[in-house]
């Protein structure tokens, strides 16, 4: 995805506007490029699956498609709010690519935001080399907000590796 951004940015003016979808995970705000998201739906009944990591909540039926539902809060190790205003993960972002189709649990209806591509800071150092190089695309700094832009498909492919590792361990 980041490659696509690069090429389009290079093709036109540098200060191009980009639509992103912003959602809250833990206390942080995360952003996804809008073209990675197919729709936002009210979370359907999720069927738990065995032999998957804990952050894979299971599978659900979304318009006849059975897709995996992920909890990124659990995946990123963000502290879960246990206070009273937590009403559950009511919405699901449906992510789609040619290869993958899956849902991400969020608590509130996500916002869409139009930002200038130049406001994405690509070179960041978080101390976690792995995460930086894989799924964190950059940081968007707005007046009162800091949005972590992620490439969801890289998150998934990282998981995939973990899943297989886990299975190998089980088999060994």
């Amino acid at each position, binding site marked *: 995805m980041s490659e696509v951004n690069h090429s389009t940015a290079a093709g036109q003016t540098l200060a191009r506007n980009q639509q992103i979808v912003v959602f809250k995970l833990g206390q942080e705000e995360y952003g996804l490029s809008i073209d990675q998201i197919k729709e936002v739906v009210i979370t*359907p*009944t999720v*069927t*738990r*699956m*065995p*032999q*998957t990591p*804990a952050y*894979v909540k*299971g*599978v*659900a*039926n979304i318009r*006849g*498609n*059975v*897709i*995996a539902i992920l909890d990124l809060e659990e995946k990123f190790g963000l502290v879960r709010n246990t206070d009273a205003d937590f009403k559950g993960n009511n919405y699901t972002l449906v992510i789609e690519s040619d*290869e*993958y*189709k*899956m849902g991400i649990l969020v608590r509130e209806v996500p916002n869409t935001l139009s930002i200038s591509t130049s406001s994405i800071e690509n070179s960041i150092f978080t101390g976690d080399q792995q995460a930086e190089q894989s799924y964190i695309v950059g940081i968007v700094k707005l007046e009162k907000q800091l949005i972590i832009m992620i490439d969801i498909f890289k998150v*998934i*492919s990282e*998981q*995939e590796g973990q*899943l*297989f590792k886990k*299975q190998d361990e*089980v*088999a*060994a």
Partner: protein
Amino acid sequence: MSNENKDQEYREIFLAEALENYTEINRLLTVVEKNVHDASSVQALFRITHTLKGNATGMGFDKIAEMAHVMEDFFGEVREGRILLGNEIFTSVFKAADVLGELIEAIKTPRDVKYRGIKTKLEIVIKNAKPSADKDSSAAKTQPGNVVASKENEQITTLGTEETPEPEVNNEAEHEVESTNVTFSDLVQVPVKKLDNLLNLVGELVIERDRIIANTASGHSSNEYSRLNRISSDLQYSVMDVRLVQVGFLFNKFHRIVRDAANKESKVVKLKLEGTETEIDRNVLQVISDSLIHLIRNSVGHGVEKPDQRKTKGKPEEGTVTLSASSESDNVIIKIKDDGAGIDPAKIKAKAIEKGVISAADANQMSDRDLIGLIFEPGFSTMDHVTAISGRGVGMDVVKKALDSIGGTVNVDSMIGEGSIFTLSLPSSMAVKSTLLFDLENQTYAIPLSYTESVISIYKSEIHKAANGLIAVHLGHTIHVVFLADLFATHTEPKKKRYQKFDQLHQEQKLEIVVVFFNGKRIGFVVDKLLQQKEIVEKPLKKPYDSIPFLSGVTILGNGNVCLSLSIPGIINSILNNQTSKTINA
């Protein structure tokens, strides 16, 4: 009458394929003409002519087979770099392709096509490329065929002045392209992907229908939906029927495989085909095709003895491998039978102990049948030396895995000195599965009926802890009892105690147990509540969670919830693996 129809059908399929091959050959030739160093196109040409040759041989179109064979040889030489492509050679190759096209055309409208001239010319080119080696084979190639010798001579003499016959051939080729379009009209080739998609949609429709009927069953009379029910069922079966192919289509390719395998081992083997008109889902056939090839090669390589050995045993020198197919309710049974030496359980036992597949103590307790079953264990081979076609010890376990993946089974029956029978039981369709639905921790799961032996209800007090497992005895069978809930939990919470659920139960609690039988193991799964028997349309899992061993797929229930369909082979293998790793640790 039906046989004639089948023949006609085969001819049409062959014709469509052959014409496609012919078009592809022409396209690739023009590519190669522009760039003679295009190795991948030459390779593609080699492959296409090879396929065409194989198909033509299978159908008994000897002329096409001969022509394709020469072209295959030719492209083989080009690929090896022994023939350099020049203008002159291209003229010949294009002409050869045209003649090939004419021969294919001649199936539809029988007429005499002169093909030997160009064939011989190519043969000469090939012979010149490798001066000494293959005189025999090319001489042999010209021999078969029933065209009168004088005609052949006549053709050869015209070789020098090839300019004259060529325009005529070209005209004919053009003419032929026109009539070709007509052939396509009564046979449509559809990519499998489109069929899969269609089947998926029909599956959706059936699920949706069930949902609507379930929701409104109370209010309206069920009559209202009977038409919808019937039409959608008919639609579902029609789509499934489209995906069915005759096993003969695959079986016919085995003549060559048997011949090659027998030749390499200097054995004489004939292949007998039975029940070639049996229909089976195309995807199932695709999954098992490699396994079948392997089993057939094994029958020739391991089963059938050398002619002199057979003679001393009082058998005919020629061994017979019989490949038969038949339908049995929802399943297709494929049998591979040879009249060879049979499998010696004692040999298997010795080998298994030597290779460390099982311990000597275990082996002594096993029945002959179980011992023979060991050939499906990974890394097992009884051949003392590795041969070209069989005996690498990879394969039988792969066969088993392929069958497991589609919910099929494989069994071996063998009599020393009389031969072996491998019986494959395959689902005739991969899309619809008969399952038993049950509840477990407020979720509904489906378990395929093909592995389900019985459903029993027993008290907790009848289940006993034995070593690391739980055991119950029912109707004389010892059943290994597994709490599915615990099994599913061990993967997310490895520290959870193995029998937590069991220990929590009251002594007099009645337990519902689904008993499955797979791979010689009888295992009972404790579930919360049994629901009903149901035909489900199974969908594969989507990436990236498409390879969870415990699950074979998912389906959507009438209430819109997702139901997981369990993979019995996956679960049982995982249970077995856990046990073996435990014993190693201990």
